[in-house]
């Protein structure tokens, strides 16, 4: 086998060194009746050229060329080539978790930079070293808010990504957590009157998403203010991270009352490929005073005993390998390499191009929605300002976007259409033309 260096001669020498005559003897600790005395039933081994052919054939069976205008939590943004060139360094992608700080400063500093970028973008004080994805991030935020507030009732906007809500349900079910949905208003945003009515004193936190699942931009600051007035915590989920390049972040306001307590989200838009749903990268940012309740790893600045500065994994007494069943989360492996992709993306585009990319998303989406309204008989729903998605109600089956009937049967024959900066005008016009036919 080409991935195993030791030849038969090496093996014989090693067996002699150990003082046994066969490899089988080394398995004497496994009772004979539990031994598998046949070969596994697996496809026969392939050479490298055969493997390339096998995977190319399967990749070709996925049709990804035509613009499908599907977003819904996974966005097709342009990925600068520099990212893959850098993360393909063995030093990054074949390294283990940086527990040995002296020989992992590269990973540690990069994660520290990721934490800083996320804090800057969300307007929060601190961010962690990543979580699996946005969905588990929201679930972790719920558990974190339960620890902080010691309350167990949560309100979640119906416009939070439906798969995220499903994951929250799975995590919360056995921990005495009660979840109520908040409906949306006619403009596609959280219904503020209903939120007001439902925000009782026993509510631990309110979770909203902005831009929400319909693509509309929530008034997160008004929501945070309302929630705080009722003694709850405000959790804002950001599924489309590019929006942070232009929209006022949930953590930024002159009044602390109007800012979120936890901003959680998905960073896939920052240079991570869709990859059929993963791996992507979840992030979680919060106020400094809640840092000891955070889930997941944290990198901190540190000094060695000679006073030289560097970085180290810190506050690990929150984590499972120290606290076991009392840990803030069971997470161990996270999304370090995807966090590195996001960090390189943000370094490369910088604040200006990030804003321009965000603007292109807004303008192209606005163009597409207007064209559909003007040129087709289909109705674009929810008229609140949008980022890069909108809902269109069609008469038959919509050949574009994500059909919403599975998640929102009340919307009838509706589809969620996504237009990013990668959509060319001619692609948009072709879509409009087909919808007009």
């Amino acid at each position, binding site marked *: 086998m080409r*991935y195993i260096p030791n030849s038969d001669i090496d093996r014989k*020498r090693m067996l002699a060194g150990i003082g046994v005559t066969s490899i089988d003897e080394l398995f004497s600790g496994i009772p004979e009746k539990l031994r598998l005395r046949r070969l596994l039933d697996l496809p026969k081994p392939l050479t490298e050229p055969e493997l390339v052919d096998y995977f190319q054939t399967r990749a070709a069976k996925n049709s990804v060329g035509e613009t499908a205008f599907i977003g819904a939590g996974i966005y097709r943004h342009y990925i600068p080539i520099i990212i893959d060139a850098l993360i393909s360094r063995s030093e990054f992608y074949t*390294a283990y978790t940086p527990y040995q700080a002296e020989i992992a400063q590269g990973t540690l500093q990069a994660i520290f930079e990721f934490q800083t970028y996320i804090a800057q973008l969300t307007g929060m004080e601190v961010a962690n070293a990543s979580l699996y994805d946005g969905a588990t991030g929201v679930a972790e935020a719920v558990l974190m808010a339960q620890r902080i507030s010691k309350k167990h009732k949560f309100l979640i906007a119906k416009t939070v990504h439906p798969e995220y809500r499903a994951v929250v349900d799975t995590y919360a079910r056995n921990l005495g957590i009660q979840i109520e949905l908040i409906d949306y208003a006619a403009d596609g945003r959280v219904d503020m009157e209903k939120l007001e009515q439902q925000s009782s004193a026993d509510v631990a936190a309110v979770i909203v998403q902005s831009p929400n699942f319909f693509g509309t931009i929530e008034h997160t600051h008004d929501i945070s203010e309302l929630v705080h007035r009722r003694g709850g915590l405000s959790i804002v989920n950001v599924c489309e991270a590019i929006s942070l390049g232009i929209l*006022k972040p949930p953590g930024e306001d002159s009044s602390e009352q109007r800012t979120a307590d936890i901003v959680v989200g998905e960073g896939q838009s920052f240079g991570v490929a*869709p990859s059929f749903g993963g791996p992507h990268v979840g992030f979680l940012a919060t106020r400094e005073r809640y840092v000891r309740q955070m889930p997941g790893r944290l990198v901190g600045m*540190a000094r060695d005993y000679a006073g030289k500065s560097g970085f180290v994994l810190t506050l690990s007494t929150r984590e499972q390998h120290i606290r076991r069943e009392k840990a803030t989360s*069971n997470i161990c492996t996270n999304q370090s390499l995807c966090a590195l992709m996001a960090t390189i993306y943000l370094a490369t585009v*910088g604040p200006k191009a990030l804003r321009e990319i965000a603007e292109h998303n807004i303008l*192209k989406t606005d163009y597409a929605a207007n064209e559909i309204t003007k040129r087709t008989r289909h109705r674009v729903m929810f008229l609140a300002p949008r980022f890069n998605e909108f809902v269109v109600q069609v008469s038959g089956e919509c050949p574009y976007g994500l059909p919403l009937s599975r998640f929102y049967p009340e919307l009838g024959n509706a589809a969620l259409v996504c237009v990013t900066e990668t959509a060319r005008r001619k692609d948009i016009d072709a879509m409009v033309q087909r919808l007009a036919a």
Partner: protein
Amino acid sequence: MTGSARTSNHFSLNEPVIFEEGSPGRRGFDLPELDVPARALNDIIDPGLIRDGITGMPELSEVDVVRHFIRLSTWNYHIDLGLYPLGSCTMKYNPKINERMARLEGFALAHPYLPSERIQGALEIQKTLETCLAEISGMDAVTLQPAAGAHGELTGILMIRAYHESRGNPRKKILIPDSAHGTNPASAAISGYIVETVPSNKRGTVDLDRLAELVNKDVAAIMITNPNTLGVFESDIAKVAELLHSQGALVYMDGANLNAMMGITRPGDFGVDVLHINLHKTFTTPHGGGGPGSGPVAVKEILEPYLPYPVIGQNSQGHYFFDNDRPQSIGKIKAYNGHFGMHVRALCYILANGAEGLKEVSEIAVLNANYIREKLKNAYALAYESPTLHEVVFSDRLQARKDVHVWDIGKRLIDYGFHPPTVSFPLIVPGAIMIEPTETESKQELDSFIDAMLTIAKEAEENPEIVKTAPHTTRIGRIDEARAARRPVLRWRPD
């Protein structure tokens, strides 16, 4: 002399954090010109919703970014540089073809919400991987949804809970041996269970008598690692399973150590009802400096109805589809269907090996570990005499007489050009040194590691100070962790 013939000095450039670099006006990326009418943003979005700027975010050219991250990269140890003997982490070579295949455009750009006829290739990959993992583990069904090992544990325990609930009582407790990974009790706790610890006997395996006293109708399951974290096969595993099953409880196996047993023995054949598999350990998906991983969960038929949705279905025409209609499912554990990029890599590895290859992997992993055991057992105290499989655990008992501890030994290994082994774990061994070489190391690499370990043992006797103050060759010395945690600085801020 603070190193060996293996290491010598070379450039190591210093580099500030990225926020201290660049200058206003530099650009690393340009967008194509906007090709739709440029409306004023204020006409579309209320200006109150627009941010002013992003404080502290640097402006850099492409060259700046490349230099920055390349410089950082040179500060890391990694598997392509040399042996990475972390016990229970299975740090093995990551084949280059895996990376290339996962990046094929048809995979990288695929969206899980595309209509099923447009994603047949991706679904076939996932289904094929499920089938292979079921065969390797001897189980009946597999979900690829969990993102990592601990996430797989959570998934498995939630399924156990759903199984018991369907019988009218979720039960209260999960039993966990004292040698287990910290994720096990943490996962049990967030599934709403109380954790009860099962002591190990003097062979390092589960104490059957004590276990018998603990098993009753309140117990939902045992979470057991096999081979356990000492690298010892739980030879009574069939009896453990019988005991649990006799009280209606189930057996969860932590599959972190599957690298010891592929084609040799199968969890499904020794009574396990559910296990997770770490694709980033046994199946060569890279660790990425801490992730992403992938933690598929394999189950026996009795747990199949509770798998997270979607499961991958196949109709009579051979057409694959996501089946979301799963009324008894525990629900979703993650958005979409797992880390597909990792699934491609793992399948690529399995297909490269086939049945003979995977068996050889486990055989050589065990050979390499036993070779190290034999060569080091006179210099370091073996924690247990029981036969070990893919990893071996020593203690620092002999070195501790000179006040040299496991942490010092690990740090001194760095000076000899190696990553330290797993230290201070498992918790049942005071001063544990846990070494897992994997099958992808040559005899020469192992001999070089053994030499370094023997030299350190000698240094501990003759010149303990040099070990206690190691490493001496790194760009930064041992970190004052207590100070870092007292007043944590978790982000850069302008002075």
